[in-house]
């Protein structure tokens, strides 16, 4: 006999798509249903087989090159390719140049603001890069442990501050390990958390002058949330939902 829940509810549980209530309910059911238990084990086996087989096919170098070269060509406005339009174009360029000069004249204060903004953007780009780097095989953790009492002492002597290491496994963010990373030529502690199928890197650094208090945003499809706490700047990065990162931030901020 097949348990009715095994068709969809089991998969939703397996994929972390049930809310906390639904998951708890299903876990209670699981205790008394050998059928669902067997099926869940089978799903786990299939998933780890697929993950272990490294079936993900990355874009080949030829495609990367073609994408880079084909897109800008498609983007060139037709009048640039048309020699008859050239004369009109030179006037347009003059007008553009004039506008640019005028903007520079009028916009110094604005530019200063923009500069601060772009400094932050540059920092975010560095952090997203570090996150991407960490996802390369073998780069995620230097110390692999779900135990905060193993991860925390590991940083001793490797870094000149003691990053706050906490496991939030009970709240859906299991600690996976830690790593040293270099952010903008300063050493930072990277704490690695799991969030369903996603990886969250939390970079911890001593607060630098000019670090913004609370900020968040999206870059290249990755969400980031940063905050300050006890003299540290925290930046959480992941491709998981923004709400997840905010929840992780609240967990850190909770006493």
């Amino acid at each position, binding site marked *: 006999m*097949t348990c009715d829940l095994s*068709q*969809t509810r*089991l*998969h*939703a549980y397996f*994929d972390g*798509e049930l809310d906390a209530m639904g998951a708890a309910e299903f876990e209670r059911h699981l205790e008394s249903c050998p059928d669902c238990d*067997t*099926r869940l*084990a*089978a*799903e786990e*086996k*299939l*998933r780890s*087989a*697929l*993950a272990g*087989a*490294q*079936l*993900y*096919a*990355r*874009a*080949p170098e*030829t*495609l*990367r090159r*073609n*994408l880079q070269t*084909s*897109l800008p060509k*498609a*983007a060139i*406005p037709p009048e640039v390719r048309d020699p008859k339009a050239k004369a009109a174009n030179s006037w347009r360029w003059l007008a553009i140049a004039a506008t640019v000069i005028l903007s520079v004249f009028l916009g110094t204060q604005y530019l200063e603001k923009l500069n601060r903004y772009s400094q932050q953007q540059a920092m975010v780009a560095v952090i997203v890069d570090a996150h991407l780097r960490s996802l390369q095989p073998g780069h995620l953790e230097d110390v692999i442990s779900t135990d905060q009492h193993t991860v925390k002492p590991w940083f001793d002597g490797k870094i000149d501050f003691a990053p706050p290491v906490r496991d939030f496994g009970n709240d859906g963010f299991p600690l996976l390990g830690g790593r040293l990373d270099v952010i903008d030529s300063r050493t930072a502690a990277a704490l690695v958390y799991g969030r369903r*199928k*996603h990886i969250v890197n939390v970079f911890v650094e001593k607060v630098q002058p000019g670090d913004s208090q609370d900020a968040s945003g999206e*870059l*290249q*499809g990755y969400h980031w949330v940063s905050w300050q706490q006890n003299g540290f700047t925290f930046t959480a990065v992941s*491709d998981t939902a923004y709400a997840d990162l905010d929840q992780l931030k609240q967990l850190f901020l909770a006493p």
Partner: protein
Amino acid sequence: MLEPEDRARFEADVMPHRDAAYNLARWILRGRAQAEDVTQEAFLRAYRSFGGFQTGNVRAWLLQIVRNCCFTWLQQNHVAEEMTEFDEQSMPPKPENPESLAMATYDRERLQRALEDLPAHFREIIVLRELEGCSYKEIAAITTRPIGTVMSALARARQQLRTILTEPVPKGASRDL
């Protein structure tokens, strides 16, 4: 035509998902060369319609375009395979046998071939969930199906994949990744 700032945004937000795009195309089309062509075509389409895309999930938006290009390609090239859309009513669930539930460990080649032997609509859902790590909501958006259909199709796809894996190994070379 894209404004320069949109062009920069496209470079920054869409380009990083080229692996995701290629991977999906490679598995739906089951071949490298086709996947490269179709991914490139999908990026051009995405580029042309990017002006209309303001906020939201860039990866899901791009993958939806990739997926549509792939299925158009399969149709145009009359690829002889099960193209029918998954329909729960006409495909009632069958009980799974104990052997396939107690799946043994399989090597990469075997898994690759099994995944390629799944019907296209099951294949894409396994790739999006297991290789790309998409949420149900994202898969629903990419494949333009209701979430309920995504859930039952995923359950069915996993079961069928296990069944293929327990069948005797078929003869013939496997396609390269």
